[in-house]
């Protein structure tokens, strides 16, 4: 077997929930794969489509956006707006061969340290199965 592919995944996580969950996972000594690069944002509602497009063009293999459960967003409805943007990108990017499942959206609450660690592991496994981002090989920006 060839060497195991080590994906790079950028995760935009909401300060109030998923980021707190990652902290909790840390203090509970629940490890999560080093493939995940966390970027803390104040709300998923501020994740511009540009950030995600840029991440893919720079060659990351997967992007996760993770925020508060419906009803829990600290800015009332940022997560619902984020979901529409994700729908939009999940419609655009696959037309150019960036598989839909490279782009993921989850809700992980502040007290869900375990869910955080498990989700990250599963995400890495799934992206690993997809292989490298097709844009990566060519340095298309």
């Amino acid at each position, binding site marked *: 077997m060839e060497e195991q592919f080590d994906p790079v995944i950028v995760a935009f996580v909401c300060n109030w929930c998923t980021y707190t969950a990652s902290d909790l996972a840390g203090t509970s000594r629940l490890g999560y794969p080093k493939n995940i690069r966390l970027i803390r944002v104040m709300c998923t509602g501020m994740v511009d489509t540009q950030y995600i497009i*840029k991440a893919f063009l720079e060659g990351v293999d997967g992007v996760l956006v993770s925020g508060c459960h419906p009803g829990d967003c600290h800015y009332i409805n940022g997560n619902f707006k984020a979901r529409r943007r994700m729908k939009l990108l999940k419609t*655009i990017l696959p*037309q*150019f061969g960036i598989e839909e499942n490279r782009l993921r959206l989850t809700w992980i609450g502040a007290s869900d340290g375990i869910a955080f660690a498990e989700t990250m592991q599963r995400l890495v496994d*799934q992206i690993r199965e997809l292989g490298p981002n097709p844009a990566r090989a060519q*340095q298309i920006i």
Partner: protein
Amino acid sequence: MSRTADINIKDNHIGETIGQFLKKILESDEVAAVLTPHRPAEKDMIMPRFITDPEHLQGAEPLSPAFAVNSARLVSRLTRQSPGGTIAALLRPCEIRAFVELVKLNQGSTENLIIIGTDCPGALQNADFFAFAEKHGDKATARFLETAFSDDQASAEDLQIAPACRACTQPTPEGADLAIGLFGLQPGPKIQVYAQTERGEVLLEKLGLEEAQADEKHQSAAEDLISRRSQARQEMIEQTRAATDTMEKLADYFSRCINCYNCRTACPVCYCRECVFATDVFDHEPVQYMKWAGRRGSVKMPTDTLFFHLTRMAHISTACVGCGQCANVCPSNIPLAELFISVAEQTQSAFSYQAGKSIDEQPPLAVFQEDEFQEIVGIENGS
């Protein structure tokens, strides 16, 4: 039901006849100014002109094949505050649709506006029009119209209308207050005007034109044209998808792009007041280029080309009205209309939205529902 009037064509000149109709409107008390395509005497180019003096309607070219700008932007400028009088704007269907999108973004208002829409025979791409106009001067429009309403729409010169027009499945002026019907009636001795709104009713009544029956040939000819166009559109979309279905192919598609951003400037629905790509965010430090190149050994210059186009798709594909202006202005001849129309078809259907269709329907990215798109949340549904 809705008021209809016949207009008889004088001396075989549809353009002039519509020009006369505009004059009648401008001379009425209802309207203070008219926006219409216009050709200055002795000149070849046809551009929109904002006219308050009815005499200046001499030279109006309502059905010309020139389509240098999508006038939605101009109407937006004219209406974002009260202009101090009612404006009648003669627009193509795709200009109306673009304007509807701008109104939803508060970049224009229908308050002091009467939209007069025409059935659209299509337009030539700029480069084709320039050559055509050079050859035919003031006869260009008449030459174009000789065959514009025949079935294959090939002009006397075998010029083809723009790719965006060939794939346009909304060639009738929905959303206009007054619609000028040409399909099924041209070539022929008359055209018809239909009032499509309350405001249109009132104006048509004031103009004192005799009421007529809507000619059913119009409806059926429009339907025929639309079904032929739908097929052409599907073929175009399939070809475009096949040509861009990997990132590598997409990069090839844009390999000639020089990042001039003309497409953005010409696009009527590219709505940002300041485009992020024009800000210093993209004045990268020289070391940044070193880094990019260093990662793989080299990097294509100018950079950020696909970043720009993908961002534009994310921003405006749900509002794209398929007018083809992006392609019209591209100095590198990149088939932009084909690509943006293909992407728009997918994104608009993802949100069950049709750009320009209804002023009351909110743009997809401006609204949400709490219980929608559950299927894209979570990572359980494996890869």
